[in-house]
């Protein structure tokens, strides 16, 4: 059954091809159903492959199956195959990518209703799903890079899907350019790994001897640059808040649940090459990103911007987990985050849809009566992300905080940052829920908000269910309940084990839950009961994301542009000038000797004769001497 893996990316590719050829013929809603069917069948096939993989013995090393399609780049000692690798890590990723992906396809059928480019949207979604699955299933860095670039391109297409809007077109470009910085890191890392180990295939990299400390750290950091670009970490996060210009299902799928987790996937996949020094840097940047983005989310007014910064913050958590060596915790959080963040985004989409494209939370409020299903599921997502037990977010976040606590060098500091982030997360999510669904009504009567159709509410309900029970895949305290950890164990050379005792674990969990509850209480007091003045809670500094983006714009627009212009001038004047100068010199010389070419046969004949005579004379001279 594992052999069916090739079908998983092929089905969305087929859907893409079908819509490319005949998307307009199918029209609405058939194009959407075709794309959804492709994604859903892909999920079913992934399940079949998963069951097949479960049938093998994990501890005997049998749960790693390579499916080679063909030799892709046979170039000397570099051999790159187009192949898939099915192992616990890739199948875990693929399960939620196709699962959440299929739900979001279904949701889009309702959300994109009436859009003039209806079929094109689903075409991009299917292409994205195909690229993402190539990224996840690729058995070497180059195939993963193919998917990596594919999701980058699809992300660009989808962010600027409404490209007649200037802001959407710019946001797409920004995402693309920022991601290129990360891609640079990916490429250099691939080259370095190949020159150091002579292979780019994952299974061979995992079994290679360790690289020298310097090379290993350099490769790790380059991989982290790649991951920081795709997964929106400091300082490359700037594209993600702007990416909210895309349609909401895109934000849910591409910029919350799947694509942005590919950086986490890459680092976990390459866990055998990451060095201690690099891990420390990753942990610090992850924690800094988590805190920074959570602070920014506190003062946003756009319903999607809050979720965007929240996504960056949660991704920071995942990198904090990786940096602390707790790869399983990172993947665990990737999965639970995929559930509750997709849920929150789809919920916000449902709100925006019901409010007729209103995104400002200041013009919402008291919507729970008008859209009960959306409100109920959104509240589930809120409790999950706020870390309230027993919702899924609590379990994964708690594991990350525990891993941070046990980090060897600066553990308590990382834990404290994580805890503050948890508090802020609970606060800003509560603020959002209150502003949107509770409190006083701040919209005009003629807006007439309404609940969305069943194609939109079904995914919400399914995801809400997953967000509630998602934590069950890795429950702590009882060893046999750590299903995910045992499943993923074969891919790590040195599996991470928590050293803390049960008491420490429970105390830490209580502290983090308390932090979350304090956040919720403060939000309730200030935004619902209005006991705390709310003006001071939205400082301008945070509303503008600490002016990082503006600073980037000023630097790149000012000094940067001058620098680029200087470089262009240098190229035009010095580099081109040298080359053109050589050309001009040759032309001048040619003009000098041009008259000798008279075109008359006789002149040439005389030349030959004189030359021949000269040779004779020289030879004769030599002989005489």
């Amino acid at each position, binding site marked *: 059954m594992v052999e069916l893996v090739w079908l998983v990316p092929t089905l969305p590719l087929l859907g893409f091809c079908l819509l490319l050829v005949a998307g307009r013929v199918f029209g609405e809603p058939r194009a959407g159903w075709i794309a959804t069917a492709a994604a859903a069948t892909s999920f079913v096939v992934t399940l079949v492959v998963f069951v097949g993989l479960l049938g093998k013995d994990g501890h005997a090393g049998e749960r790693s199956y390579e499916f080679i399609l063909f030799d892709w780049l046979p170039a000397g000692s570099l051999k790159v195959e187009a192949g898939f690798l099915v192992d616990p890590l890739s199948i875990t990723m693929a399960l939620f990518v196709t699962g959440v992906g299929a739900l979001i396809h279904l949701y889009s059928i309702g959300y994109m209703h009436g859009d003039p480019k209806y079929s094109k949207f689903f075409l991009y979604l299917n292409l994205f799903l195909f690229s993402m699955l190539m990224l996840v299933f690729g058995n070497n860095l180059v195939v993963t890079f193919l998917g990596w670039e594919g999701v980058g391109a699809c992300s660009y297409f989808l962010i600027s899907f409404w490209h007649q809007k200037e802001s959407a077109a710019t946001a797409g470009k920004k995402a693309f350019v920022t991601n290129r910085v990360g891609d640079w890191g990916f490429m250099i890392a691939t080259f370095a790994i190949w020159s150091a180990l002579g292979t780019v295939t994952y299974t061979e990299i995992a079994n290679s001897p360790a690289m020298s400390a310097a090379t290993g750290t350099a490769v790790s950091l380059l991989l982290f640059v790649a991951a920081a670009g795709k997964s929106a970490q400091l300082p490359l996060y700037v594209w993600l808040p702007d990416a909210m210009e895309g349609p909401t299902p895109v934000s849910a799928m591409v910029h919350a649940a799947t694509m942005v987790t590919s950086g986490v996937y890459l680092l976990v996949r390459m866990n055998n090459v990451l060095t201690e020094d690099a891990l420390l840097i990753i942990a610090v940047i992850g924690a800094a990103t988590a805190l920074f983005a959570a602070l920014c989310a506190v003062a946003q007014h756009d319903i999607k911007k809050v979720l965007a910064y929240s996504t960056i913050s949660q991704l920071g958590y995942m990198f904090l987990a990786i940096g602390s060596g707790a790869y399983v915790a990172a993947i665990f959080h990737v999965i639970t985050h995929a559930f509750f963040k997709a849920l929150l985004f789809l919920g916000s989409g449902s709100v925006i849809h019901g409010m007729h494209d209103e995104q400002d939370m200041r013009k919402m409020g008291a919507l729970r009566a008008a859209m009960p299903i959306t409100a109920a599921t959104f509240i589930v997502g809120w409790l999950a992300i706020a870390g309230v037990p027993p919702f899924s977010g609590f379990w994964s976040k708690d594991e990350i905080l525990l891993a941070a606590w046990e980090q060897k060098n600066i553990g308590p500091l990382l834990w404290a940052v994580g805890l503050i982030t948890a508090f802020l997360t609970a606060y800003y999510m509560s603020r959002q829920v209150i502003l949107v669904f509770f409190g006083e009504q701040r919209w005009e009567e003629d807006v007439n908000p309404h609940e969305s159709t069943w194609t939109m509410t079904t995914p919400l309900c399914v995801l809400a269910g997953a967000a509630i029970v998602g934590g069950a895949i890795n429950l702590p305290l009882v060893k046999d309940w750590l299903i995910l950890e045992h499943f993923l164990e074969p891919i790590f050379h040195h599996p991470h084990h928590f050293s803390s005792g049960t008491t420490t674990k429970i105390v830490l969990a209580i502290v983090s839950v308390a932090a979350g509850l304090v956040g919720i209480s403060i939000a309730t007091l200030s935004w619902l009961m209005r006991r705390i003045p709310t003006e001071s809670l939205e400082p301008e500094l945070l509303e503008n994301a600490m002016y990082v983006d503006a600073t980037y714009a000023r630097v790149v627009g000012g000094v940067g542009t001058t620098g680029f212009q200087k470089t262009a001038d240098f190229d035009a004047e010095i580099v081109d000038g040298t080359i053109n100068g050589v050309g001009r010199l040759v032309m001048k010389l040619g003009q000098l000797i*041009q*008259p*000798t*070419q*008279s*075109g*008359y*046969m*006789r002149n040439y*004949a*005389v030349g030959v*004769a004189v030359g021949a005579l000269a040779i004779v004379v020289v030879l004769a001279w030599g002989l005489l001497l």
Partner: protein
Amino acid sequence: MEITTGWYLVLGALLFVIGGTGLLIRRNPLVMLMCVELMLNGVNLSFVAFARQLDDIGGQTVVFFVLVVAAAEVVVGLGLLVAILRRQPGATADDLSALRG
């Protein structure tokens, strides 16, 4: 009087000089082409004479190649000449300087 190799060499040199002079002083392209043939055959004669004296088949082999190349050259040369004279009847070598730099 015995005819030694030297005689052949002198004859070859004479043919070469006559051809060379003709190439330089004549203007009729057809005659110039014939002069080139004369020069080639002067050299051929020297080759054969040496081959005979040194008892070395190499010289005659070279002559064979020269003959083949000369035949090819005449084909091209005459073809060009016919084409040129068709466009410019009675053209001399002095009229033809289209390849001036």
